């Protein structure tokens, strides 16, 4: 083909290793102008590494890269940005102490008008940010401090920042979105989808997601990575989820379903809230979860689900209402009392709240329930290791090395360890999970869900904040819909009623 327009991106035999791990192995990829490419693959398949190479953060060991027909040899993220590559990283990379506008401007230092003679022109910086935010249809004050924003809003700022790229004339920007939807809710995903369709008019897009239906819906072409290599590269037309599975893993996972637990007749609820209120977060919440049942809390971001769950766990003081655990009313509730009463909490922000990154799997698992691994006040390293090894084997943690610091594991494997930490309880009464599948691939997600179901079977009550409504429908016996801090609807799924996603979305907003 002798097209006058060169491809936006042309990768030839690119590789990158970390020690023995070949994170990216001999990848060749071409993206045409205006194309939206879906990139998917298991956790640790090498997606982020590949994107970091495009973004100038990692340098390839081998191979060549061309952007808009020009050889690209990025030395820094700035080089990539100037060449027209804008990135939303998987891990949020905003300065939480600075304003929205400034975060956008910092990435955009070369733009004229933002500073004159080295002096910041705040008016222009704010105007520029407003313009960009408008362009992607986000309603945010440019002056807001990023640290005060919700996770989603921050994600929007990231996207705004990425679309600021201004490659030279005749050049097409390449916008890279590394799992932008992992933290988004249904409605927000729709906003993003619209946004990507707009982007396509002037840019090419690489979109990474573990949600295969999303990939199939949004993208023109889908590329699958596995162990660092490209295993599939084809148009989305006519492709099914099962096809993608096969390209990702050796054997497609067997979908497990669980018979829903019936409404218990007589048993005491493991946890019950009566009129629970935290001013400014949620109001008058009443519900009960019985042993062996799963209750999902759905709602938009900011609807108060997270705060409610934290309050149940003793991490926040209710302003009104009562809380009953195992039928007993509790007072002066605290995290330590909650844990002693058999409660467990898997927070959404795994790295910051869920685990001790610098500690090994062994130590993380022994953080909470370690009665069996203690001799008096001393730790029993042997027993700790045996316990950890049991869980690593049971949850199939990869790499199966209980001594490696947890921050060196992929997110999915981290989540397995966090789960193990709580499941290791001798008497787990209530398991609370805030977005437990965030960022996990299909295989790992099923593994985690299997563990949740298993715990449930053993008589644990589960409170779940799911990523998607599908997840809620798949897992829960009961769904509580929260809107603006109040319960707007309840659905008992054990009666077998057929619930439509649309219906729930309507109750959310």
């Amino acid at each position, binding site marked *: 083909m002798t097209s006058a327009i060169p491809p936006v991106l042309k990768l030839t035999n690119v590789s990158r290793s970390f020690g023995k791990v070949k994170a990216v192995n001999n990848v060749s990829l071409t993206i045409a102008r205006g194309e939206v490419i879906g990139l998917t693959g298991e956790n640790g398949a090498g997606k982020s590494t590949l994107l970091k190479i495009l973004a100038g953060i990692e340098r390839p060991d081998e191979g060549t890269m061309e952007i808009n027909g020009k050889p690209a040899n990025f030395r820094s993220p700035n080089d990539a940005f100037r060449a027209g590559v804008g990135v939303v990283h998987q891990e949020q990379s905003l300065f939480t102490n600075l304003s929205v506008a400034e975060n956008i401007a910092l990435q955009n230092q070369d733009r004229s008008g933002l500073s004159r003679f080295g002096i910041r022109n705040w008016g222009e910086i704010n105007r520029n940010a407003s313009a960009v935010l408008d362009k992607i249809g986000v309603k945010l004050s440019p002056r807001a401090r990023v640290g005060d924003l919700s996770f989603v809003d921050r994600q929007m700022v990231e996207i705004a920042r990425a679309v600021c790229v201004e490659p030279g004339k005749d050049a097409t920007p390449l916008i890279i979105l590394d799992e932008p939807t992992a933290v988004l809710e249904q409605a927000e995903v729709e906003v993003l989808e619209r946004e990507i369709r707009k982007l396509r008019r002037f840019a090419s897009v690489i979109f990474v997601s573990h949600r295969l239906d999303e990939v199939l819906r949004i993208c023109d072409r889908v590329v699958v990575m596995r162990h660092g290599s490209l295993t599939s590269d084809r148009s989305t037309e006519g492709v099914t989820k099962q096809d993608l599975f096969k390209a990702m893993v050796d054997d497609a996972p067997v979908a497990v379903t669980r018979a829903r637990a019936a409404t218990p007749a007589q048993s005491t609820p493991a946890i019950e809230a009566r009129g629970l209120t935290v001013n400014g977060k949620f109001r008058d919440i009443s519900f009960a979860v019985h042993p062996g049942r799963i209750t999902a809390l759905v709602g938009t971001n900011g609807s108060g689900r997270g705060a409610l769950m934290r309050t149940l*766990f003793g*991490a926040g003081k209710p302003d009104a209402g009562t809380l009953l655990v195992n039928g007993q009313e509790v007072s002066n509730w605290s*995290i*330590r009392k*909650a*844990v002693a009463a058999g409660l467990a*909490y898997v*927070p959404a922000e795994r790295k*910051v*709240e*869920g*685990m*001790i*990154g*610098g*500690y090994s799997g062994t*130590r993380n698992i*022994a*953080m*909470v329930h*370690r009665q069996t691994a*203690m001799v008096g*006040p*001393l*730790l029993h*390293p042997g027993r700790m290791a045996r316990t950890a090894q049991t869980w690593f084997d049971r949850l199939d943690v990869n790499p199966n090395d209980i001594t490696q610091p947890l921050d060196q594991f992929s997110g999915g494997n981290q989540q397995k360890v966090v789960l193990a*930490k709580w499941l290791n309880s001798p008497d787990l009464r209530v398991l609370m999970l805030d977005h437990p599948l965030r960022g996990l691939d299909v295989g790992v997600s099923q593994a985690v869900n299997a563990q949740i179901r298993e715990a449930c079977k053993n008589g644990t009550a589960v409170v779940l904040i799911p990523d998607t409504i599908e997840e809620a429908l798949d897992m829960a016996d009961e769904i509580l819909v929260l809107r603006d801090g109040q319960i707007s609807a309840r659905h008992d799924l054990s009666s077998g009623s057929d619930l439509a996603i649309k219906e729930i979305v309507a109750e959310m907003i």
Partner: protein
Amino acid sequence: MKAFRQFAAWHTIAPPLVFFAMLLVVGIFNPNYLGPFGISIVAATAAPILLVAVGQAMVLNIGSIDLSNAAISMLGAILLALWVPQLGVAGILGVLVLMTLVGALNGFVLAHTQVPSFALTLGTLGILQTAALVISDSQTIYLTQNRELVTAFYNTSLAFVPLTFWIGVLVAVAYWVLLRFTVVGQNMTAVGKNESGAILSAVPHRRIKTITFAVSGFTGAVAGLCIVAQGGSASASGLGSNLLLPGIAAALVGGTSISGGLTNPLNVIFGALTVAFVPIAIQALGFSAQAQSLVYGIFIILVVALTTTRTRGLVIK
């Protein structure tokens, strides 16, 4: 240098290595330092620094800082000098208990009011200084009775090294065991590495902070014992009144991270030896009195450049 840095275990062996290298260099100029006398001097000087430093290292390990621990030593020394003549061993125990409580109070207030430890312990520092002045009536308290009970710790040597230093080593080993093999120790490091994560894992973080500062207070009191053992007397601005910065420096030279979650009390032993040895080495190498401050500064920078922990990706503050 670069090759060294890449050497993964460098930071674990650097503190002892740098110390012995310095000893060797000085020994070449002045062989007496390689003998028992040289060793005993360095160890004697290092003893109070070591004690203050391991206490500080424990506090740094949970991500806080204790600016008051050297003042605790000072007050401890004065109380020892006042109490030991009448009370003997009970006086020593009394001081250890009291100073442990002072440390615990620091930690308790810190944990429950959630103020920055830097500011809180600065306030405690002021109060303790006043306490030292007032209790000593601005006098040097000279031990007359029961003098040997305390000075024996300095005057008795084991393998040429005074007992005060061995006490420091003992305490360092105890803390190492505490951190590696006990629940409390594991929780301390967890709080230092990720406090939010620790809180949500039901770590009793308030108790942990109280205990850690109590540990620092206790170690400070033992340092006070070393001061009195060496001086036979104590005063508010005398021996031991300049231990704060050397203590922090020794903890850092010993590989402790100032941002928390990383320390090895055993290496702090060598950190303290190094920090104690630098001025001695400068004197021994024969720099003029006027040049000593300059050379001291350069030495400190060089030593730390060699011993700093530079784990990949670790942000150096």
